[in-house]
């Protein structure tokens, strides 16, 4: 048997055969590592979770014409092409025109209704979203003024692009409530809009909901400015700034909790190891009497601590993902992504924290005087 195998034999025997004493320390390390792994998983998953959460607050990037006119279809397409497909939650291009109902003026908006629904999931619709030609969504304000309900019909009049008067009947599919300016609009499909107003191949605005951080949005905006001439990208700052602020605060909170948990783990391990050293004073004294140098005693106790740290870290890495999943599902109602790189980081962090926690107890172990602890009775 080599010295190294005897060393491992001693530390593993101490841990396995004295399991009751070490179980508390292992539990502390495993819990600490679980919380560390879980919270760090959440820490890195929060931006993704929160971005998705914030997407329910509407568009965070809009494209308008830099010259003040409407955007051509080509310009809009060039700008939209700058958004990575995987990050595009919803894109809705709008055309606006004033129309009349019962001789009262209202703003009609033609858009891709499916895109509008994806871009603005916070819209509360009484009734249903329009699915057929001749169906529209009207804002609550419009409904109140002209006393319309879902299923009602009304006649829209106005002047088309050619300057000719038009009159067409529409059916109200649903009434939209947003608490915002949208309640004064009549939303219809681009086909219906073109049927009454006429086709000019242009959009007034393109609203985009993109799952991206503020920095990523700024990068997209820069690309649009560069590659789509005539398009002026605008970040919806009230959304992007709130998102950034909430993310920063949440991440700071998670960081703080993780730090506190690691400190508590360290204190628990240090206390347990201190108790272990006290309990094993005679054994330490014996080893010193047999000629063990202080560095040998340090190596053994530190070895036991690091072994515990490693074992606790492995347990924590495995349980941490479950813990993160629990947080993800219960807090964000979404599953978190497994961060493979986090497993070795958790093990290394556990070993480091345990090693740090063992320093004082190990120092005390070297202070044991064999003559005192081995004294006969």
């Amino acid at each position: 048997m080599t010295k190294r195998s005897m060393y491992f034999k001693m530390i593993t025997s101490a841990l396995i055969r004295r399991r009751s004493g070490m179980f508390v320390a292992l539990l502390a390390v495993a819990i600490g590592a679980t919380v560390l792994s879980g919270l760090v998983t959440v820490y890195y998953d929060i931006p993704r979770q929160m971005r998705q959460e914030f997407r329910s607050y509407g568009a965070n990037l809009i494209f308008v014409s830099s010259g003040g006119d409407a955007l051509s279809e080509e310009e809009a397409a060039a700008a939209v092409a700058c958004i990575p497909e995987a990050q595009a939650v919803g894109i809705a291009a709008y055309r606006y025109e004033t129309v009349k109902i019962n001789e009262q003026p209202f703003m009609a908006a033609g858009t891709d209704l499916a895109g509008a629904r994806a871009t603005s999931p916070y819209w509360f619709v009484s009734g249903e979203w329009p699915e057929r030609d001749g169906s529209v969504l009207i804002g609550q304000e419009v409904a109140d003024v002209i006393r319309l309900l879902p299923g009602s019909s009304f006649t829209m009049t106005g002047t088309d692009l050619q300057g000719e008067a038009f009159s067409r009947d529409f059916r109200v599919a649903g009434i939209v409530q947003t608490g915002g300016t949208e309640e004064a609009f009549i939303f219809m499909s681009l086909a219906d809009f073109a049927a009454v107003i006429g086709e000019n191949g242009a959009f007034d605005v393109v609203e985009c909901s993109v799952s991206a951080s503020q920095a990523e949005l700024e990068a997209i905006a820069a690309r649009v400015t560069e590659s789509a001439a005539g398009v002026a990208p605008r970040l919806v700052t009230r959304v992007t700034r709130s998102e950034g602020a909430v993310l920063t605060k949440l991440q700071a909170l998670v960081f703080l909790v993780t730090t506190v948990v690691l400190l508590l783990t360290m204190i628990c391990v240090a206390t347990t190891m201190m108790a272990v050293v006290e309990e094993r004073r005679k054994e330490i004294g014996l080893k010193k009497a047999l000629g063990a140098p202080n560095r040998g005693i340090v190596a053994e106790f530190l070895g036991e601590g690091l072994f515990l740290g490693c074992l606790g870290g492995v347990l924590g890495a495995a349980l941490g993902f479950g813990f993160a999943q629990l947080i993800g599902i219960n807090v964000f109602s979404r599953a978190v992504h497994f961060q493979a790189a986090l497993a070795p980081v958790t093990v290394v962090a556990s070993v480091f924290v345990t090693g740090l926690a063992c320093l004082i107890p190990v120092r005390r172990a070297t202070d044991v005087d064999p003559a005192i602890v081995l004294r006969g009775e």
Partner: protein
Amino acid sequence: MPILDIKGISKIYGSVKALHNVDLAVEQGEWLAIMGPSGSGKTTMMNIIGCMDKPTEGKVILDGVDIAAESARNLTAVRREKIGLIFQQFHLINYLTALENVMVAQYYHSMPDEKEALQALDRVGLSNRAKHLPSQLSGGEQQRVCIARALINYPMLVLADEPTGNLDEANEGIVLDIFKQLHREGSTVIVVTHDPEVAQEAQRTVVLEHGRIARIIANGGPGQTNASRLEDGAPDSQSRQAAERSKE
């Protein structure tokens, strides 16, 4: 030249003099017993000889080196290299088997050798108990493991503190037989004991009282050499000093 030469050592703890100007020489291969009542300085003497403590004054020459002047680190090395310790309470490591307990001494000394450790256990009649934990061994068996551990590195000096203190008569006999065998093989053995019967087995018995050597008795131990010398009226220098001190 004696293997151990103690010259005028004193040990003072605060206002208490545990040892007072003690001289003692132990020859290579000698079996010496140290006796005395509680508080006489036996343990202090054992700790100093065993390099676990240093005297306040005096010299302790072990194998030509004054260990009283050595650093704690060097004393650890001396314990490792030259001394085999046997304890009254055995002090086996409870989570290691008998064999592993013996190998621990090898581990600190040089290289663990399972075969050699098994031979050491065989020497004390315990090869069949090698894989047992201390809790599975009787007191006598634990003491024999402790002896095997003390002997595994072929120490220059075997130092036993009340080796039979926790044993019944049968096991005491077994342990004493091992000491006799050790002595026959030429080992230098110092036994600290309360038991006159154990002390009688040694060649000489040093009796400590109040931190001083009260007398040195030459026994009819295995060698009987010193007993013959005493009978001849030629006690060694320590005996002479002790006799003089007792007259004072």
